[in-house]
C-alpha cells in the first residue's frame, strides 16, 4: 500500500545483527528439572546448605503452581522437562584479569560492543559480565569496595555476604510470588548483587550485560540491589542474544530495596533475539522485576527500552511502603514482525504521600501485538497519594495491534489518580512531508519514533540513551524505520 508498509517489509528482511554463536564448551546439567537437578546446580556453584534448601522450597512450591495464561500473548506450551537448567563456560581457575579470560569470550563481547575493556572502564563503567550463567569477569571492584560498595555476582554474594543475601533475597519477590519467579528461585544461575552502604552515593553507573548462549539453556538471572539509608545507585542492564531455532526461556527476577532516603535507578535496554519474521526462534522473556521503597522518602525509578524477545511478559513494579516515597516507570516497548509484548507496571501505594509516575510508550510494527498492562493501587492508609499515568501507543502499518489495560484500585479518598492515553499512527502524509524535505523514509520514521520516545530516553543515562536510540533504529530496520 504505502512506502511505509514497503519499508516495513524490506526491513523485516534484515538479519538480526547480533546473531552469532560462540563455540565454548558448555558445562551443562542434563535436561529436565527435579530435586536432583536443583542439588546439582547448587553443588556446582558451591552453595551453602541454606541456599540449597531455599531452592528446594521454591521448587516444591512451583510444582503446585499453574503457568499463568491471563496475559495477552500466545505461544505453544513450554516443556519444562526439555530445558537445560544449568550451563557455564568452562573455567579452570579463578581469573584475576582480563588477559586470563577466554579470548573467544572476549571476542564475543567485542562483537557486541560490550564495554568490558580498558577504554570503557575509563569511561566510568564497571562491568560485571554474565556470560551464560556464570560471571566471568568483574572490574572496578576494588575502587567500589573502598566505598564499602559490594558489586559482585550473586554466587559470590551467597558465599561472601550470606547475611545480606539471607536478609533480602526473596524479600521483595518471594519464592511463592508467581510461576516464573518460583521457577527462577529454584534454578537461578547467577546475576548481580549490589549493596550500597548508608549515605554512599555510588560514583559510577554499574552495569551488567547478559547474553544467552549454549542452545536450549534457560537463563534464570537473579539480581538483588540494596540501597541502604541515604544511598544512591544507578544500574544499567543491557542484553543481546544470538540467533536460535528453538525458543529459549528467560525468566529473571530482579529485586530492589531502597531504605530511608535511598534512591535506586534501574535502566534496561533489552534486545533479546525476537525470532525471524515468522516469530520462530525468539526468546521468551518472562521477568519479575520489583522494587520496594521500604524507607521513608525513598525512590525507585525503572526505565526500560524493550525491543527484543519473541514474547515479553514483564511489569517492573514499585511497592511504595515508606511515607513520601516515589516510584517511577518510564518505558518504551517496541514490537515488530510477530513479536508479542505484555508489559507495564504496578504501583502499590501503601505509605502516606507516596507518589508515582508512569510513562509508557508502545510502538507496534509488522504483525506484532503490544499491550500495556498497569495497576495503580492506593491502599487505605495512603493519605494524599498521587499517581500520574500516561500510556501512548504508536502504530506503524496496519497489521499490528496496540492494547491498553489500565487497572485502578483506590481505597483512600484523598488520593489523586490521573490517567492519559493516546493512540497514534505514523501517517503516510507525515512520511511524505519529511521525504519532501530530503529525508529518506527510514530516517523519517526514526525521527518520528525518537521524538515520540523522547520523554523516556531523557530518563536514561547519557550513553545508554544513545545506545537505545541506535537500538530502536536497528530494530525498526526489521520493521519501519
Amino acid at each position, binding site marked *: 500500500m*504505502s512506502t511505509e508498509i514497503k519499508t516495513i517489509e524490506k526491513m523485516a528482511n534484515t538479519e538480526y545483527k547480533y546473531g552469532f554463536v560462540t563455540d565454548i564448551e558448555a558445562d551443562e546439567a542434563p535436561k529436565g528439572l527435579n530435586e536432583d537437578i536443583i542439588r546439582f546446580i547448587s553443588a556446582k556453584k558451591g552453595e551453602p546448605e541454606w541456599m540449597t534448601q531455599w531452592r528446594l522450597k521454591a521448587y516444591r512450591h512451583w510444582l503446585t503452581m499453574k503457568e499463568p495464561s491471563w496475559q495477552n500473548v500466545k505461544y505453544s506450551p513450554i516443556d519444562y522437562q526439555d530445558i537445560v537448567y544449568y550451563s557455564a563456560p568452562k573455567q579452570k581457575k579463578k581469573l584475576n584479569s582480563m588477559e586470563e579470560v577466554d579470548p573467544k569470550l572476549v571476542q564475543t563481547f567485542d562483537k557486541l560492543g560490550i564495554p568490558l575493556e580498558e577504554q570503557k572502564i575509563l569511561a566510568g563503567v564497571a562491568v560485571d559480565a554474565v556470560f551464560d550463567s556464570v560471571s566471568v569477569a568483574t572490574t572496578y571492584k576494588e575502587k567500589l569496595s573502598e566505598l564499602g560498595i559490594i558489586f559482585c555476582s550473586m554466587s559470590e554474594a551467597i558465599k561472601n555476604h550470606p547475611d545480606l543475601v539471607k536478609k533480602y533475597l526473596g524479600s521483595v519477590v518471594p519464592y511463592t510470588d508467581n510461576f516464573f519467579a518460583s521457577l527462577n528461585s529454584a534454578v537461578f544461575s547467577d546475576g548481580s548483587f549490589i549493596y550500597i552502604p548508608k549515605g554512599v552515593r555510588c560514583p559510577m553507573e554499574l552495569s551488567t550485560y547478559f547474553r544467552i548462549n549454549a542452545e536450549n539453556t534457560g537463563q534464570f538471572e537473579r539480581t538483588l540491589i540494596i540501597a541502604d539509608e541515604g544511598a544512591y545507585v544507578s544500574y544499567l542492564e543491557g542484553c543481546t542474544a544470538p540467533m536460535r531455532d528453538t525458543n529459549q526461556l528467560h525468566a529473571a527476577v530482579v529485586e530492589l530495596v531502597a531504605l530511608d532516603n535511598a534512591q535506586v535507578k534501574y535502566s534496561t535496554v533489552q534486545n533479546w533475539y525476537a525470532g525471524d519474521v515468522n516469530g520462530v526462534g525468539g526468546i521468551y522473556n518472562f521477568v519479575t522485576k520489583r522494587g520496594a521503597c521500604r524507607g521513608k522518602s525513598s525512590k525507585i525509578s525503572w526505565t526500560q527500552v524493550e525491543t527484543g524477545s519473541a514474547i515479553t511478559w514483564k511489569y517492573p513494579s514499585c511497592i511504595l511502603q515508606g511515607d513520601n516515597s516515589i516510584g517511577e516507570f518510564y518505558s518504551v516497548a517496541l514490537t515488530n514482525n510477530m513479536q508479542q509484548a505484555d508489559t507495564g507496571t504496578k504501583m502499590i501505594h501503601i505509605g502516606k504521600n507516596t507518589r508515582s509516575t508512569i510513562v509508557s510508550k508502545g510502538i507496534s510494527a509488522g504483525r506484532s501485538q503490544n499491550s500495556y498492562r498497569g495497576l495503580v493501587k492506593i491502599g487505605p492508609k495512603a493519605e494524599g497519594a498521587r499517581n500520574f499515568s500516561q500510556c501512548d501507543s504508536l502504530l506503524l502499518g496496519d497489521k499490528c495491534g496496540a492494547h491498553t489495560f489500565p487497572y485502578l484500585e483506590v481505597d483512600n479518598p484523598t488520593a489523586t489518580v490521573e490517567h492519559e492515553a493516546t493512540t497514534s499512527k505514523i501517517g503516510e502524509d*507525515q512520511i511524505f*512531508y*519529511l*521525504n519532501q*524535505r530530503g529525508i529518506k523514509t527510514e530516517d523519517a520514521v526514526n525521527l*518520528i519514533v*525518537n*521524538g*515520540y520516545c523522547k520523554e523516556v530516553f531523557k530518563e536514561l543515562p547519557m550513553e545508554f540513551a544513545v545506545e537505545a536510540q541506535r537500538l530502536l533504529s536497528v530494530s525498526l530496520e526489521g520493521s519501519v524505520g
Partner: protein
Amino acid sequence: MLTVKDLYASVEEKEILKGINLKVNPGEVHAIMGPNGSGKSTLASIIAGREGYSVTNGSVTFEGKDLLSMSPEDRAREGIFLAFQYPVEIPGISNATFLKTAVNEIRKYKGLEELDAMEFLALIREKMKIVGIDQTLFSRPVNHGFSGGEKKRNEIFQLAVLDPKLAILDETDSGLDIDALKIVANGVNVFKQQSKEKAVIVVTHYQRLLDYIVPDYVHVLYNGRIVKSGTKELALELEERGYDWIKEENNIPASTK
C-alpha cells in the same frame, strides 16, 4: 530547468491529468491557475513524488534528469521544494531537529560538509528574519498546534533555509489574511532574488497572491489540461471574468485540444 511533457496521470483509475506540457526555465515565475478539481495540486504532487498517483504517459525532467524515477527525497535533494497546501503536523520532533536533519541530508547529497549546531543556528537566525518566525515557533514541534498562518509561514521559512532551485507553492495563499500573505510573498521574493537561477511555480486559485509574486507566465489548468497560457494580464482577466468562460470555451471533450 523543469520540463513536463505530455503528462497523463490518474488516481484510482480516474484520469486527472490529460496531457500536460510545461517548461520552466531558470529565473522564471510561473503561475498555474484554474478552478477546483482541475488537477493543479495533482500536478504539484506528481512533481514532488507523492505516492498514490499513476503516471500513464509522458515525462517530467528536472535539469535533464528523469524525475519520475527518483525517490521523493532525491527530488528534494536535487532542489525541488514543495510548499504544502496543508502542512503536516509532526508531534514530537522540533522544527529545529527536523530542519537540521533536512539541511544536512541535502548537503550530504551535494557532497557538502554537514553543518554543526553552531553553523546551523547562524543560518537559522539569518533566515528567521525573512519570514518573521520567532525562536519559540522554531523550537516547537513541526507544525504542531500552529495556526493556519503560522503553518504557511513555516513552509516559507523552510524554503528559505533549504534554499532549493525550484519552489512550488501549492495554494500557499489559501487561508491567509492580507498581512500573512504579504509576509509569505516577501519570503518567496527574497528567495527569488538570491540568484537569477531560482524558479517558482505558484499554484493558486486567486489572482491576489500574484499582486505580490509577479509571474512571468500564467497557465490556466482546466480538466487536466493547460487550456490557456499568457502573461500576468491573463490572471487579471481571470480575476475579472471568473473561470466560467474558460469552462465554456473548453466544454467540448478532450480530443480537439
